[in-house]
């Protein structure tokens, strides 16, 4: 592990793009862990396809973050040469795959948000973020539909699938609050019309959730306590393990290309 971590000058806009890029990369990587292991071939392809979409979104966002920063960084350095405390993703997306229900509940919580978020970001005053949003919105609509249908199949399926889906909801619920949190830097971007205030999406997000979870005969937890930290680099133990795999090639053979 000879390669040093890069430094990133996190202006509000760089940090904003970086946070969304990290969400997409880490969730995409998590889904890619199912490749070759999913319960059936169609799902193997579905999860790998969604992973590809997310990693593609991450590349656009990293490239934009690097360009905005205007230093020596690029998409690869941002992905491969930052340590765990420099990652800015939501705690939700780094949670382990667990069983199939846990993966799909995580995907459902995130996609229900991403679908609303990217749709709203299409009118951002930042032309690049608006363009990335217009592409991502189409993809997230598929991702949400895929996850929603699975939540209904699992919840309204067998006793065993219902039990596992409910356990996943109960376990992951506390990580959803972070999606709606905003700090001072983001408040400035929201004020400038560059970013969307995620708080304004929460009502519709809950409506999407309630509809699907109700049809799935599952229930949402009543607790309001939410775990946070990912946006400022305080992560669960799982992210370091994920990065050690994601970054191992570049850390071992610096600068290696295919």
């Amino acid at each position, binding site marked *: 592990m000879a390669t040093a971590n890069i430094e990133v000058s996190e202006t509000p806009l760089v940090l904003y793009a970086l946070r969304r890029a990290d969400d997409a990369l880490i969730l995409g990587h998590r889904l890619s862990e199912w490749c070759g292991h999913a319960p059936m071939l169609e799902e193997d392809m579905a999860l790998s396809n969604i992973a*590809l979409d997310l990693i593609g979104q991450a590349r656009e966002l990293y490239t934009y973050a690097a360009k905005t920063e205007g230093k020596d960084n690029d998409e690869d350095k941002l992905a491969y040469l930052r340590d765990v405390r420099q990652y800015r993703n939501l705690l939700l997306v780094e949670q382990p795959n667990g069983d199939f229900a846990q993966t799909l509940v995580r995907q459902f919580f995130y996609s229900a948000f991403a679908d609303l978020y990217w749709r709203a970001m299409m009118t951002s005053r930042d032309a690049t973020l608006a*363009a990335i949003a217009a592409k991502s919105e189409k993809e997230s609509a598929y991702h949400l539909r895929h996850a929603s249908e699975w939540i209904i199949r699992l919840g309204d399926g067998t006793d065993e699938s219902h039990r596992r889906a409910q356990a996943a909801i109960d376990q992951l619920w506390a990580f959803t609050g972070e999606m709606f949190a905003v700090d001072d830097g983001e408040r400035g971007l929201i004020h400038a019309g560059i970013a969307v205030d995620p708080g304004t999406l929460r009502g519709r997000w809950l409506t999407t959730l309630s509809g699907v979870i109700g049809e799935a005969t599952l229930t949402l937890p009543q607790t309001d306590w939410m775990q946070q930290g990912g946006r400022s680099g305080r992560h669960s133990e799982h992210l370091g393990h994920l990065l050690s795999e994601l970054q191992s090639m570049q850390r071992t053979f610096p600068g290696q290309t295919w």
Partner: protein
Amino acid sequence: MVIAVDDNTALRQRAWDAAASVVDPEIPVLSIADLGVLRDVVLDGDRVEVAITPTYSGCPAMNMIAIEIEIALERAGFRQPKVRTVLSPAWTTEWMSEEGRQKLRAYGIAPPQASHSRRALFGEQAVACPQCGSDKTELLSEFGSTSCKALWRCRSCREPFDYFKCH
């Protein structure tokens, strides 16, 4: 090979034709012009820059397409061609040419249909089988062998087939 810069329109057409000869590596019956991926060709003297737009954010065919465009242009006599990726406006299957749709069907892939709501769950959609034309078909998986396709099956002729998703 050196090109005389005497007729800009003809030269641009030549560059466009060269770029348009590149096919999608995953669906080799479709050119990038049929797909709507080829957006623009700009000439500056004898230098040429081609603008393409990705279909899906993570489509791995895009890198391959960019390399093939450069090769096609160099073969057509253009020096140091450049390929630029544009994100906006976002690619849509509405840009697929009618010729492209016919080529897809003949190749065994059902072309995209616009009527389906992207947000309805367990949506019912009628996609005609590209093999036998029957409407008695069913969706097997929304995600197929590439980002742009879904997997379907015909209940009349029992053949599985790809459907090019509306995007």
